[in-house]
C-alpha cells in the first residue's frame, strides 16, 4: 500500500479526502499508480493524463517511469495558485 496526499481540487474531486491509500498490484512505477487512481477516480485520472495534475515523490516532481517504494512521500499536485502567468 502507498499513501498519496491530496491538495486543492484533487482533494475535492476525491470527496474531500486528504489522503488515499492505494494498493499497487501491477507494477510499482508512477504510471502504474496513475492507472490505479484513474480507475478509482476518473476525474483525477483525466487531469493526471493531461499533466494538469502532477505527481510528486519525496517532494520532487516525478517522471512516470520512477519506481515508488514503501514509505515514499507521494502527493498529487494540482495547478499552483500562480498558474501560467
Amino acid at each position, binding site marked *: 500500500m502507498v499513501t498519496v496526499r491530496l491538495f486543492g481540487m484533487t482533494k475535492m474531486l476525491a470527496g474531500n479526502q486528504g489522503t488515499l491509500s492505494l494498493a499497487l498490484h501491477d507494477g510499482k512505477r508512477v504510471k502504474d499508480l496513475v492507472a490505479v487512481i484513474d480507475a478509482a477516480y476518473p476525474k483525477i485520472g483525466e487531469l493526471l493524463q493531461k499533466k494538469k495534475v502532477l505527481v510528486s515523490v519525496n517532494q520532487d516532481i516525478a517522471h512516470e517511469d520512477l519506481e515508488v517504494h514503501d514509505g515514499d512521500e507521494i502527493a498529487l499536485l494540482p495547478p*499552483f495558485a500562480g498558474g501560467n502567468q
Partner: protein
Amino acid sequence: MSLEQVTKADQPVTGDEAMLVRVQREDFSIDEELRRVRARSKRIGGIAIFLGTARDRSKGKDVDGITFEHYEGMAQKKLREIRERALKDFGVIELLILHRYGEIAIGDNIVLIIAGAEHRAEAFQACKWAIDELKQITPIWKLEHTTEGEVWVEEHP
C-alpha cells in the same frame, strides 16, 4: 537521490536563515521583515519589495475571501531554493520570502518578497524573478470565495 543531488534547500534550516523563508498562517509586519533583511549586511544599498494582497475581484467575479492551502515541507523547500538561486544568480545580498496560508480577508497581506542588494538594479531583478518563480514552482493553492461559490484557481484547465 545521490549525495551530490542533495542541495542546501533539502537541509533543515535553523536560526536567522529560517526566519528568511517562512510559510505561516499569521500576518507579518513589513517593517519588522525589512529590519531583518537590513540587519544581514551593511553592504546593502538598494532594497526592492513586492507585497501581494487579496483583491476583491477575479476573472469578472466578486471575491469576498481567499483560502490558501500549501504542501507543508515541499512549499518551504521550494522557497528556500528560490532564495538560494536569487543569492547565487542575481547577486543580491539577501532575499526574504514569506507566504501566508489559511483564510485571508480581502485587502490583507498574502506574500512578501524583500530583495536587498548593493544597487537597485539587482534588487529589482531578483524581486521580480522571485515572485514569478514562486508562482511557477511553489505548491500553494488558492481557493477564492465568490458570490457564485468557491473556486480553486486554475480549477478549469
